[in-house]
């Protein structure tokens, strides 16, 4: 109850700020025209605002800025797009801000599994249900990496050793428990029949890859669970080995040698995805507009090139599939986090 009150306070503050910069913020579409004469199709009626719920330079910000470039550059929308960075609460500040525009089709926010996990972990009272899922857009894959001179050469070796003694290996994870890096490892441990998962030695590095990689290269931890993007330069330079990747089939090019978990007999396929949600209360016409615009965006060459530069796969799900996916992963992740005692 207390927490709810503070969120209301936060939303109020957000609202106040919003009115404060009313001059630059277009008012939400005021559907005063009667329902009878409402058009069947909807198009954005004011400047479009993409909320990146984190500071400039991070994953959300890069997604928002790439969207802006493809959507306006390839003329997929005919209104200007602005990007707003709202940091704090592991994304919650930005998402709470999004819902100050309930029912508007001109606003959406970047999101990721954080929206599920923060809710499960009790960090945020907001869940995906408070928003309108619009599209999943990109995915990168998770890996487990070990130093190049590690005794473990395959995923099987590694998990056999952990099964025999779950405290044997220190595993770097970051920036916090309960994120996709952590959940990948829990899924792998479960699939390998490790029962006492709460004994696993996770060493949490709040600085994420920037601290995990030196820790692994310096031999302070023996493994790390991380996204491929953060580990790949060291992999290419031959400084570390990657035991397996969470994709459904092998990647191409430099990463063709990395075996998937699946082909090693470990049944785990797990994208680390990002997508966009709109505020609650969007109309079917608004959703249909963005289903159309965002699916087109995902097929643009400029979008594919930009994703490639950021080492992401284009991974498009439309609004309906995305919503179903969110439902399913919420259930799965809730079960996993319970098994390690992170949630009750």
């Amino acid at each position, binding site marked *: 109850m207390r927490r709810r009150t503070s969120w209301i306070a936060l939303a109020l503050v957000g609202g106040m700020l919003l009115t404060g910069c009313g001059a630059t913020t277009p008012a939400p579409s005021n559907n005063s025209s009667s329902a009878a004469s409402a058009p069947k199709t909807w198009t954005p009626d004011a400047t479009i605002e993409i909320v990146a719920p984190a500071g400039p330079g991070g994953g959300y910000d890069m997604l928002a800025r790439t969207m802006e470039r493809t959507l306006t550059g390839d003329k997929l929308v005919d209104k200007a797009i602005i990007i707003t960075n709202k940091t704090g609460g592991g994304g919650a500040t930005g998402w709470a801000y999004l819902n100050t525009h309930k029912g508007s089709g001109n606003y959406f926010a970047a999101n990721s599994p954080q929206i599920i996990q923060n809710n499960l972990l009790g960090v945020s009272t907001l869940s995906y249900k408070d928003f309108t899922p619009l599209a999943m857009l990109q995915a990168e894959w998770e890996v487990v990496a070990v130093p190049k001179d590690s005794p473990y050469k395959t995923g099987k070796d590694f998990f056999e050793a952990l099964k025999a003694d779950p405290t044997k290996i220190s595993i770097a994870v970051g*920036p916090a428990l309960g994120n996709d890096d952590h959940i990948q490892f829990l899924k792998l441990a479960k699939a390998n029949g490790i029962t006492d998962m709460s004994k696993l030695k996770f060493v949490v590095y709040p600085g994420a890859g920037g601290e995990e990689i030196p820790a692994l290269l310096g031999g302070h931890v023996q493994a790390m669970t991380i996204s491929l993007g953060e580990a790949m330069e060291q992999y290419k330079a031959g400084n570390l080995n990657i035991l397996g990747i969470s994709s459904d089939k092998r990647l191409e090019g430099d990463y063709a040698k990395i075996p998937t978990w699946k082909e090693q007999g470990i049944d785990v396929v797990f994208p680390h995805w990002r997508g966009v949600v709109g505020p609650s209360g969007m109309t079917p016409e608004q959703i249909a507009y963005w289903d159309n615009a965002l699916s087109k965006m995902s097929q643009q060459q400029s979008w594919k090139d930009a994703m490639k530069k950021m080492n992401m796969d284009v991974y498009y799900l439309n609004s309906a599939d995305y919503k179903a996916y969110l439902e399913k992963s919420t259930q799965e992740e809730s079960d996993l986090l319970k098994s390690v005692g992170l949630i009750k």
Partner: protein
Amino acid sequence: MLDSLNYLALGMHEAFTATNIFWVLIGGILGTVIGMLPGLGPATGVAVLIPVTYGMNPTTALITMAGVYYGAMFGGSRASILINTPGDASAIVTCWDGYPMARNGQAGKALAISAWASFVGGMISVIFIVFLALPVARFALKFGPAEMFALLVFSLTATVTLSKGNLLKGFISLCLGFIISTIGIDAQTGVMRFTMGFGSLQDGIDFLVAMIGLYAVTEVFKNYASLDANYGVSTSDIGKVSMTRADWKQCLGPILRSTPLGFIVGVLPGMGGTIATLLAYSTEKQINKHPENFGKGAMEGVAAPEAANNASSVGAMIPLLTMGIPGSGTTAVMLGALMMLGIQPGPTLFTQHPEIPWGVIASMIIGNLLLLAINLPLVKPLVQLLKIPQRILLPMIMGLAFMGTYLMNYSASDFFLLVLFGIGGLLMSKLDIPIPPMVLALILGGMLEQSFRQALTIGNGTPVLFFTKPISIVLLVLAVLSIVYTLVKDSRAKARISKGQAA
């Protein structure tokens, strides 16, 4: 050796284009301005530039961003010296002697020392980077949780030297800082601590908010008592903005010692400018013949941290350029920007695109020269700030403090914290409890705790790691020696004084 020089020549060739020099200049000026404004640090400055770098080639983009980074190191100390409000985190230490110098009528000299120390520190570090980048990067890998913890403990011994005689009050301040640093979600277990149901406290209290509150807001509150006075400094003799031969003699040692120290700390992951300046300051204070002058306007107390923070900003580029690992918040933002340009800094960058890292290194030489040329003439106009009557200056400081706070997290709830810390700081100064140890604990507390617990997890719940890793042992022993040495020196000094009184 010769290879390095060849590559440097390549880098010079790359950096000495009109475009690149132009952007170094823009980056440097922008960085200086951003560094001066409290709350706006180099990370924000680089982030602001991201859209501008879209169309650039990667070398130019990186050169521009690096310009902002060390420009901010030059600029950060301006506000520390003139209004006791650090422009960014690594300029906190400069307040301790820079502001007293300004109050003693030496604002111009303090600014000049800071510009020269920044320049010398930056230039020597560029030489280090040319010849030592790879071995230093390898050495930094030896720092695991146990070593980090030991290094942090060692830098905390500075508390003893910062307590100005009253050790007990120093420790009270330190403990308060540690308590506040535990607020928020605990990274190792995901448990919420002391958030009292406030969603805005989940991420913990940003030490920059605390710092602006404790310094700037407290300063304003204190000065409201004497609203009609100006700083009580005769503005005529502030005009002296150069360093004399004697000043150089006094400052050169601290600068030369602080530079390598700052450089190495900058290379360590997650450490950065603030810790570099702290270590430099406390080292200088301990070896100085007149440690009692520190905190009262000692030139060495400005020169040492200023050299160290510039050196650390150069050092922080090493993990980024050699391994693709961001060693600080600023370099993390740079990494993101470079990835959008299709360049992934990493271990292969030096071999595959040598023109990029070496172009950046060469640009640092140009950048440092340009920054000195920009910053020295700025001293005179900046000093005029002190002529502004308090009744106008204080609201300006307050405005800057609120603006800076908001720009950090775009969170209005930080305003409450800012005022709370301002009031807290006022109470502390009335009770004669020193503020620096608290700020120190706020900055280091989180890292200290995390590295301690990481080491415990790895050691299966035992502290065995601290006593088996050589670097950790050495640092812990040094920490103990440093405390003992200070205590002994203090008690001897006291004995001498009492003897003198008896005689």
